[in-house]
């Protein structure tokens, strides 16, 4: 993989970690404070969803440059992560108690593990 593209990927992975981490901690705080998900938190979930879709497009576009990556494995993880955040985000929107952010926090933790796996697979 050319180093420039490699660097773009590294930066993007760090951004993904940061956004997912902030969203997860924020959701845990809102759960403890006994608040339903507000507009800002839902916007955060939507932003993460957007980033994951960008990740999907980026990796489709550059897939040829990665050797020995099983597409089924890699895209399985990307698409599962997108589904998890989309469903949890919708859940948080519909659920008018503290358990909206609670579910979002669980989804965030799952997605952090998935980002780590994606990074390992891509290397």
């Amino acid at each position, binding site marked *: 993989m050319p180093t420039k593209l490699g660097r773009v990927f590294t930066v993007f992975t760090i951004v993904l970690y940061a956004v997912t981490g902030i969203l997860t901690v924020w959701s845990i705080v809102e759960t403890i404070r006994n608040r339903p998900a507000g507009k800002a938190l839902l916007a955060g979930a939507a932003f993460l969803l957007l980033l994951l879709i960008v990740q999907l497009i980026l990796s489709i576009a550059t897939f040829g440059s990665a050797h020995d990556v*099983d597409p*089924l*494995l890699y895209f*399985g*993880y990307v698409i*599962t992560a997108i*589904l*998890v955040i989309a*469903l*949890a985000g919708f*859940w948080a929107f519909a*659920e008018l*108690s*503290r*358990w909206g952010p*609670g*579910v979002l926090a*669980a*989804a965030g*933790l*799952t997605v952090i*593990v*998935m980002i780590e796996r994606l990074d390992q697979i891509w290397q």
Partner: protein
Amino acid sequence: MHSGPGRALTAVYGIFALSATARAGYQLIREFDFAPIAYSLSAVAAVIYILATICLVIGNRISHRIAVAACAIEFLGVIVVGILSHTHPEDFAKPSVWSNFGSGYGFVPLVLPLIGLWWLWRVGRRAHRD
């Protein structure tokens, strides 16, 4: 069953069912020959998680019983496979959801059925009182 924490538990079960199914599906398609026992178990586990999720969503008396059974099987599974993966490591060369007491999944497979059973017990008791 359908108050806030119960719905949240259902959602967490759903997230776990989704990720376990995705992984088991991949293992069955691509790597089944490496560790047939472990991967068959992963698939069985994924199906039981889906069953438990659906029964938690429905929430009537029959589905309540099925959910209790599903959670109990999950808990037994994680304990038995956890022990077997230490005594017979050669059959579990590749990780399944339940290997090493679910350590590959942050021990979620060990904790989730216990929370599920506790919640079902609480709901059942409340329904009995009413």
